[in-house]
């Protein structure tokens, strides 16, 4: 230690006074497997034409019920359709329906829920009663009515139908969240700045809703895919020649006693894997929105 060390020096340059900026967040536990799997499934479905090696709807009656083999990678169903091709082709429809239906119901739910959450007590009460009434109506009835109004069935109309019948629960949740969020003083601050409802909705409510909505959105994708299969099963879903995971699942139902495991397991596996991947990523995104830590 030299004596020079004890010379007086003035405080350093201002930049150095600041805390080190740009602390990069440590990315931990990124769900890489889920992301890769989901990407693979999505791409496969998107480019189904490239991936498919048979026509998904053509019934090779001669090869009906073939177990997985070199020609039919995932086997064929009782009608001789190639399951491998059906998976990709059907996945596109199912995922489209799942995502579109979810988008529709989320859109309605967020709008309705936030209006209700922001409105005065009487309006809020009335709006909530309305959702309760709508929840009480059997959705099949609404579905029949909407379908009659739309006319022909295509993936979009099915998505619309599912979306229009599935938003009530989410709207309720959104309203609850909005009730909590709106008591935050940054909302009041924004109002004091003459922020309009839309401004507040877009800038303050929506970003805060994302985390609670994610779980609902993810489950709603799954239930929309399931709902589509129920609709197909009831004969008010997609036209028969349109293959979807939903219709493949009902094939599984038929194959159960005959022991055609590939018909049962493979589509189910695809569906479950996709949903689990989406959930996984959803959870990861949720965690990203850091929420303090537990004192427990």
């Amino acid at each position: 230690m030299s004596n020079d060390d004890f010379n007086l020096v003035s405080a350093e340059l201002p930049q150095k006074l600041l805390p080190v900026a740009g602390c990069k967040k440590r990315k931990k536990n990124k769900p890489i497997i889920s992301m890769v799997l989901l990407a693979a499934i999505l791409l496969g479905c998107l480019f189904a034409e490239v991936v498919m090696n048979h026509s998904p709807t053509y019934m090779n009656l001669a090869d009906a019920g073939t177990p997985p083999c070199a020609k039919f990678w995932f086997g064929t169903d009782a009608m001789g359709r190639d399951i491998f091709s059906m998976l990709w082709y059907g996945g596109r429809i199912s995922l489209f329906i799942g995502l579109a239906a979810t988008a529709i119901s989320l859109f309605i739910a967020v709008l309705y829920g936030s209006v209700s959450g922001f409105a005065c007590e009487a309006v809020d009460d009335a709006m909530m009663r309305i959702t309760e009434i709508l929840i009480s109506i059997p959705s099949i009835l609404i579905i029949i009515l909407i379908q009659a109004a739309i006319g022909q069935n295509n993936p979009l109309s099915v998505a619309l139908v599912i979306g229009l019948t599935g938003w009530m629960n989410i709207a309720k949740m959104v309203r609850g969240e909005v009730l909590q969020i709106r008591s935050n003083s940054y909302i009041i601050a924004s109002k004091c700045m003459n922020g309009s409802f839309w401004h507040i909705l877009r800038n303050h409510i929506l970003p805060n809703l994302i985390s609670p909505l994610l779980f609902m959105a993810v489950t709603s994708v799954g239930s929309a895919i399931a709902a589509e299969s129920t609709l197909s099963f009831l004969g008010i879903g997609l036209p028969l020649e349109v293959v979807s995971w939903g219709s493949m699942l009902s094939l599984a139902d038929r194959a159960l006693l005959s022991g055609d495991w590939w018909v049962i397991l493979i589509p189910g596996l695809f569906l479950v894997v996709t949903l689990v991947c989406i959930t996984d990523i959803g959870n990861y995104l949720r965690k990203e929105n850091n929420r303090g830590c537990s004192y427990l």
Partner: protein
Amino acid sequence: GQKPASSTTSDATPKTTLVYGSNDYSSINPALYEHGEINSLIFSGLTARDKDNKITAGLAESWEYDKDTFVYTFHLRKGVLWHDGKPFTSKDVKFTLGAIMNPDNASEIASNYEDITAIETPDENIVKINLKAPNVAMLDYLTIGILPAHLLDGKDLASDSFNQSPVGTGPYKLTEWDFGQSIILEKNTNYYLGEPKIERIIFKIVPDTKARALQLKSGELDMAQITPQDAEEFKKGDHYQVYNMNTSDYRGILYNFNNPLFRDHRELPAALSYAIDRQPIIDSVLLGKGKVAYSPLQMSEYNNPDIEKYDYNPEKAKSLLQAGGWKQGADGIYEKDGTRLAFTINCSEGDQVRVDMANICAQQLREIGADVKVAVNAQTDWENQDSYLIGWGSPFDPDDHTYKVFGTNKGSNFSAYSNAKVDELLKKARETDITADRLKYYRDFQTELAKDPAYTFIAYVDAIYVTDKNISGITESTVLGHHGVGIFWNVADWAIA
């Protein structure tokens, strides 16, 4: 069956019980609702059928027919009692037939009886049925279950509570109906053909065929009709008996002649019929449990095997179309005068076999250049649809399901099919009781129908019943009817070992 149901009854000696996996019933009334296996257990008709579907005595011991006046005179069995103990009389017969023919009741089967002009009951045991024309099939139609007039007279047939607590003269009487769960039938000790052997038959309501198969496997059912796919499973063990029974139940594509496409282009049904390759359909959809169909009477003794069978011949289909003036458009679909050969085959929901058949047919039709789609509907719009995957069958008298199905404007002619020759032949066949004549008429009818097809016949569907091994008495050779109905014809003789 030493099944849970019987083992838990309080009786010291367990009753013999047969648990049958059944569809759901909302009302039981043979006069109104034709479908329904349970009718034959509870009710019995004036006449009955034997093993080979020949007419034998039922509630009527004997009958005479007056050829000149077209009058049937039935001598009723004496001492027959209703399940409630009241005696069965000729009044009941008159009431029942009257009820069926009453348009207010909108019975499914009214058209079978439209030839009846009057019913007389000169005495308690004699019924005279006057016809306006000869009708040989009438004896067959009189197998319909007779309703008790003393319970129903003056009531609204459709909504009366009788439909939930039916009383008949059949081998079994309804003792308990647990809605949606089960219908319990006890043997009718007063049954006029002798006491049935099985003491109790339970119709357990299991509408889902998959669930039925599962319950059979788990032993909750002793007997059920199941799908071919599920049947494989039961062939293995020695616990079950699989009855692969012939039926007169065929499937075909019904072309709706109300629809301009088929109304204006009568060449289509024939041409399209050549495009269907039937055996693969049977092999894949029915797992081989069926027969290629070409005629509505194929299972009956009146069958004409020498008609055009429309064997698979896509080239012929195409050339027929071309001969009819159809031209293949740019997309490979035939067109004629701006009309595309495009239509939809409709199916009722709930029957996967029909949906699968429709799908394959559509694919095969697409291959020759017809743009065919399949739709599944909850309700059928007969008037406006293009085509429909129909199922009919005439197990008994050939008049049944032909006259009313193919006759112009007849009750079940849903497709507006109309062919004067067919009408005439059917009428003639119905009006004669000389077997040789009938045979000729029906053979001619089949030839005519094949020339101008109303349907594209696809297949006869076998009915597969799986029963517990120790149930005996089921006659495997009997040809069953529509939907496999009729296996219970001799239920009184069944026994459980």
